[in-house]
């Protein structure tokens, strides 16, 4: 099987033919991965180097893995050949940046909404203030764009994962 694993905009081509030998961008590695008591902690031996890999349970069906290794967290997207071909074809049809939903990362109270629909925002610009655990948390824009919808208003309680603002 051939896989494409993308981290930080860098894609590795990984061919898994044997259970214990793989090719990474053409270079052979001896591998042995073993789950430790469940499906979140793995022991990985990679050419004898021993790594503990913690998988975030949020890692979902979309083959997106939130991986903690050596105190560093990486978001890795894994595609097999077919999925990759489909995705590449898809990218040619759509604009690279689609609509992005800003969701509540924790349940809390909206203290203030700082933007209005149609407003252009830069990456890192504060969008709203969410109070949780009695602390005010500023939610900032993950990229530049234009506010499409504002779905909440101040003094409303929001649930975790609820869409607050959409960005285009």
């Amino acid at each position: 099987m051939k896989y494409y694993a993308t981290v930080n905009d860098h894609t590795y081509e990984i061919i898994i033919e044997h259970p214990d030998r793989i090719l990474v961008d053409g270079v052979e590695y001896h591998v042995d991965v073993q789950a430790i008591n469940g499906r979140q902690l793995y022991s990985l031996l990679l050419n004898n180097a021993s790594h503990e890999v913690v998988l975030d349970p949020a890692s979902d069906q979309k083959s997106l893995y939130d991986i903690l290794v050596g105190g560093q967290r990486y978001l890795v997207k894994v595609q097999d050949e077919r999925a990759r071909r489909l995705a590449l074809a898809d990218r040619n049809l759509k604009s690279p940046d689609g609509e992005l939903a800003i969701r509540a990362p924790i349940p809390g109270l909206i203290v203030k909404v700082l933007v209005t629909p149609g407003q252009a925002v830069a990456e890192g610009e504060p969008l709203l203030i969410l109070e949780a655990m009695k602390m005010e948390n500023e939610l900032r824009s993950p990229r530049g764009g234009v506010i499409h919808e504002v779905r909440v208003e101040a003094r409303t309680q929001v649930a975790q994962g609820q869409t607050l603002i959409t960005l285009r």
Partner: protein
Amino acid sequence: MFKKVLVANRGEIAVRILRACGERGLRTAAVYSDADRTALHVRYADEAYRIGPPPARESYLNIPAIIAAAVAAGADAVHPGYGFLAENEHFAEAVLATGLAWIGPPPEAIRAMGDKIAARRTMIAAGVPVTPGTDIGLTDAEAIRAAEELGYPVLVKATAGGGGKGMRVVNDPADLPKSLAAARREALAAFGDDTIYLEKFVPRARHVEIQILADSHGNCIHLGERECSIQRRHQKLIEEAPSVAMTPELRAEMGAVAVRAARAVGYCNAGTVEFLLDRSGRFYFLEMNTRLQVEHPVTEMVTGVDIVKEQLAIAAGRRMRWSQEDIRIKGHAIECRINAEDPYNDFLPQAGRITSLSEPTGPGVRLESGIYAGWEVSLFYDPLLAKLVVWGENRAEAILRMRRALAEYRIGGIHTTIPFHQRVMDSTRFQGGQFDTQFLDGPDGFRMSATPGRALERVAAIAAALIEHERGQEAVIFGASPAGERRGMSPWKQAGRIGAMRPR
């Protein structure tokens, strides 16, 4: 000594106190909200009493319910821990009025130090240095004028504030109105009181605090300092003892001032006097915490004094076993607060079930924890899950030991601040001891990069591909049919297959 102690708290500090009582042969009673029925403090206590539903207001802040539990338990003493009602003099009074011992300072001392403004006046009268500041209860307009007089940067502080809530540093006059509004909102929400005042902000300062022990026989000593400058939004994240900024002379001087501060309010039991220490060695009284402090273990590890056991003895009227000359600082201790917060996502609080847990152990490692595998972390309470404390012969060994302990610490199921602490321990600025309270928040502060180092990127990519591959193989075993069609499969057969696969 007492026969039975009720611990009016939860989490790691309740466990810490229960252990100290157990090791002194005292019976223990825990209290719990409905969210905490299976919490570690309930499991480890000899007895446990329900005090209400999950919100703290209705349980851990519910004075009548806690007093009723203490009476039902037949307890003869109450330890409040930290947070919740620990610095509430009405609770202390209610405990004493019920005829129980209060394992903490006299209510008068709590009151004297709880009113920040009165405390400042008392300290000035006692010859304790304080930063310049205003009176309390300023309107926004008065605050703007006062700030000009003090000179920027200034600190907006809520009178009722604490734990960093209702506090804002303002460098630029233009930001003051916004900061005043935010501080008032936070203080109102957290403490029901939006009264504020201003202090001159001391830039590039360290937060250094002195641990105090005083008994009811007039003895009062200090156990040296703790360095608590690694803070985020005025919330401490890493503490150490001793401070790299300290000399024996300065320790003796600050210690003497702290003892003077404690004596000025008739202090008894354990307490902490917080100071700002500037770059030229001048120090200013900040406030006194009239309770056991979260970070007390670093002091215990370098002095050998068990502060909680001393609290029990002092509250029972015993004379302290230590005089100032007995206190020697040996080695170096560091504490990392392990919070249910996502350091890669602005430290947002996390909730969820702890699916797996491996705790660091071995030489020089002390863990103070309130969690276990299977525990459900809720958003009802403080995000502090555990404190990882290490001791080393010197600071270098302590940092190396903390690195290895953090690397062993695996909390599955929720994000925690462990990766943050790993980054700090790897930071040369931290290793060099060159930091102040702006280390995290300041303009040249420490940041968790959104794009972490590339060192292990390839390893992460390979691990993800292998796990994806393994999952694909499992899907093949189950058959490539969509989820809806899998339902007819025997649960027993399926369980058997899952069991036969990789996990050990």
